[in-house]
């Protein structure tokens, strides 16, 4: 029982984190049809920006009201999104739309390489620590289980952000316009949609979500240049399991992976390395296009 509770809570916490990290990826893929390899770097930059922002906050006398550091984290992420979103979408990606899928993947791979070194140039290799926000909320205890409250904050944020994005996309006119753009850019233009703006905003939102993921993680880790590399493959897996471009899918996929991983760490630690690929392979065997696969449009 206790074990089960551990697995569920651990899985949920990890899944929530994964979900935030994957959401931006699935969004950008869904709308712009770009599999953004630089997503992990954006995550890392978000972590750096948040760490810097929190550091600055405390340096400027934030001790008096430490909870303000949460705002600092979010502002850091917004900052990253507002700078890098337009810069990358407008300055770079836009010139490659209409080229082959893999070319765009490669372009973002190039961006990934550049950003990795850019981070080193900006922040150096010495890691940043801002663990204050992590312990600020204290701990929670349910019986034998003992967690840091911050972990549950991450869950809450994941739920909020996920619902928010889902609602905008599926329940608002703007969201439906985005659906039209996803399917047919040219046609949407002729129906009066400013497609360029939709792309710019969506990509910036994607960057924001990546950066937010990093910002939320920053207090738990030592922020150093390589933290983005592993994130990307995890996020890919989650997005694939869920079905590309599907927000619900990413949520379920993240939960799947989170719980599978927790179960393996507690029960069969040797298998941890395989778990994510195994989950992915199994899901794809039964649902070749992910859990929330899109119904194919009629061709004939």
């Amino acid at each position: 029982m206790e074990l089960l509770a551990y697995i569920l809570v651990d899985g949920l916490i990890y899944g929530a984190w994964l979900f935030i990290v994957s959401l931006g990826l699935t969004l950008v893929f869904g709308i712009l049809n770009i599999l953004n390899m630089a997503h992990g770097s954006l995550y890392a930059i978000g972590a750096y920006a948040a760490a810097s922002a929190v550091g600055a906050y405390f340096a400027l006398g934030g001790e008096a009201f430490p909870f303000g550091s949460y705002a600092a984290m979010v502002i850091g992420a917004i900052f990253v999104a507002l700078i890098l979103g337009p810069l990358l979408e407008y300055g770079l990606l836009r010139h490659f739309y209409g080229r082959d899928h893999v070319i765009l993947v490669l372009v973002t791979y190039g961006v990934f390489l550049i950003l990795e070194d850019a981070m080193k140039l900006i922040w150096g290799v010495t890691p940043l620590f801002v663990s204050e926000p992590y312990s600020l909320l204290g701990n929670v205890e349910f019986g034998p289980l003992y967690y840091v409250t911050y972990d549950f904050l991450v869950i809450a944020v994941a739920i909020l952000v996920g619902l928010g994005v889902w609602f905008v996309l599926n329940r608002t006119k703007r969201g439906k316009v985005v659906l039209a753009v996803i399917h047919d850019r040219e046609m949407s233009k002729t129906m009066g949609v400013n497609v360029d703006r939709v792309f710019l905003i969506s990509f910036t939102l994607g960057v924001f979500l990546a950066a937010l993921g990093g910002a939320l993680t920053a207090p738990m880790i030592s922020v150093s240049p390589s933290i983005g590399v592993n994130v990307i493959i995890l996020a890919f897996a989650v997005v694939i399991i869920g079905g590309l471009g599907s927000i619900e899918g990413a949520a379920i996929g993240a939960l799947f992976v989170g719980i599978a991983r927790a179960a393996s760490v507690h029960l069969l630690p040797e298998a941890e390395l395989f778990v994510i690929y195994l989950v992915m392979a199994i899901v794809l065997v039964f649902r070749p296009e992910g859990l929330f696969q899109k119904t194919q449009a009629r061709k004939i």
Partner: protein
Amino acid sequence: ETFKVGIVTFLSGGAAESFGIPAWNGGELLINLLNQGGVLPPPYDQPGFGGMMIEAIPVDESGGATKQVQEFRNLVQRENVDAVLGYVSSGDCLAIPPVADELKAFTILYDCGTPRVFEEGSYEYVFRTAAHAAMDNISLARYMESRGIEANTIAGINQDYAWGQDSWADFVASMSVLVPDAEVETALFPKIFAGQYGTEISALIRVNADVVHSSLWGGDLQAFVLQAGPRGLFERSQVALAAGDHVMPQLGNKMPDGVIIGARGMNGLAARANASPLTNLLWEAYEEEYGVFPVQAPFRMWQGILGLKVAVETAMAANGGNKPTAEELAAAMTGQEWEAPSGLIQMVLGNGHQAIQPNAIGTTKWDDATGQMTLVDIEYYSATCVNPPAGVKAIDWIHDGFPGAVCD
């Protein structure tokens, strides 16, 4: 005349911050000091290497063994370096020696830990100036035993690659000899650079072992400490970090008190506590230049470069002052011994190609007065106490109960 050394270490990637960059910083520092001449105490007071200025060519070690073999060839065949000194990753350390011998290029492995290099092979031109990793975990186990630390149950969290797997295997084997009652509760192997240890920490809390062993390093170790601290793991279990010293400058007081820490040799704080003039020189010069105290990596870089210096100068003494050839260097290096900031380095294993060195284990204690982390209860182990004798494989030596160990 100059002596060209290719220096290969991590300048990017996950190991850069904890090992590669500090090592390169230490190396650059030492090379400058040596080139100035007369700064170091004798026998290191000659400028450069036997009067030749040292020219270092840094190469990034990230990218895997394949790439490193290629870079190694480039260094030797294209850049015509006189020696290569490098390699933190044990995969690279295994891949390079055959090539070094094929190209007849004098090569010093300065950091990597795997015992396999000279236990499974023998090379003419390749030397390792640092002890292999078995020492670290043997020392840890000895520390448990001699300090009487309760260790009826042990658990481990180590990265899922050779370093982590070997460290855990060595530790468990050593414990089974020294503390035979110890029982293994769980052995976790998270992926390297995982960064998120919430689940692992839950598992460790759940099994509630007396001792938690870990050979995590770098960002992983920092993240683990940051995440495990608030969840009370350090209060529940005695945590022992086989190579944990290098995260102390960054973590500061976030590293809890009472953690058992090794530094892969008598390096860092443990060396400082037992200081020789050479140690103090490194310590002060490094602190002045980079604003933090030196941890294990610069110590190992220094012992490598100083060893190279000794070899060059010995060879020159033998050949009448000419720039030595690779063969001459190899001959001079074989079985050599020299003083380093980390103590006496002796090339006694692997037919005189593999070093042994003394080790030290301590326990963390935050010093409020100075605002610095210190090590207390430090135990020093002589090289022969924690390293196998020549011709014996480390793991066999452990299983056999350390026959012939000479401890002070």
